[in-house]
């Protein structure tokens, strides 16, 4: 079995592993409040650089267990050099060309010359500030292994 086949086998297994998470979410096994809830206090449940280096191929969802938030922001980390690919779990169907599954790509901002130093940023927000965004559904793949996009997620608890 060559490396390509090995990766394919691994990723098919990982893709299958997603399904139980969906079932767990339906059963109420998740972090924090359930999907669709709306609390009264805004809490940052995720912030700072997000590393995927510990995951095979450097691809990871934001959380392994479903966790529902009202606001999510992902930013290219200033000073880093690689693009950042954002995708759904469909990315497991594109195991050797992750960019073909991307619903968004964040361009790097390594020296601040572009756009007056603004970093490329992707934002998703529930219009009613309900906790409907499942962090486990959002996959992040920095093109350069070890790079760390900045992720912020707010939940109303």
């Amino acid at each position, binding site marked *: 079995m060559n490396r390509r086949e090995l990766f394919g086998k691994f990723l098919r297994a990982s893709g299958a592993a997603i399904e139980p998470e969906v079932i767990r979410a339906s059963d109420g096994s998740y972090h924090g409040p359930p999907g669709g809830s709306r609390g009264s206090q805004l809490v940052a449940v995720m912030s700072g650089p997000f590393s995927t280096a510990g995951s095979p191929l450097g691809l990871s969802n934001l959380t392994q267990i479903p966790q529902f938030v009202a606001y999510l922001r992902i930013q290219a980390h200033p000073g880093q050099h690689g693009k950042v690919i954002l995708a759904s779990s*469909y990315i497991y169907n594109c195991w050797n060309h992750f960019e*073909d599954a991307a619903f968004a790509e964040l361009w790097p901002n390594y020296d601040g010359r572009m756009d007056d130093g603004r970093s490329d940023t992707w934002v*998703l927000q*529930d*219009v009613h500030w309900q906790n409907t965004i499942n962090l486990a*559904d959002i996959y992040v793949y920095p093109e350069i292994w070890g790079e760390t996009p900045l992720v912020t997620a707010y939940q109303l608890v």
Partner: protein
Amino acid sequence: MLVMSPSGGPVTVDSVPVPLMSRSWMVTKLTIRPRLGQWSKILVGGPDLLPDESNSIAVLYPVPNGGEADAFTVQDPAGKNSIDISQIYVYATIPGDTPLVDTFYYRTV
């Protein structure tokens, strides 16, 4: 419980405007961005979109050398799945370019 689910990805555009999906698909949020590193302008419109930019609802400038990408975004303010992406067409001025589409829809799990 109510969950907002992601879908979308690159859409390949050849020589004519193409719908984002061939069958009706309702979403609550839609974003279209040029593929970073590609050189096409991206036209966004309805079924009457023409390659000369007639009837376009947005024209997105390419981002060939980095920087924040131009984007067209629409989101239902009431949090409903009200945007039928089969009625949204895109066109890339360079055949074969692949604008990125990201959509989110509400579903109950």
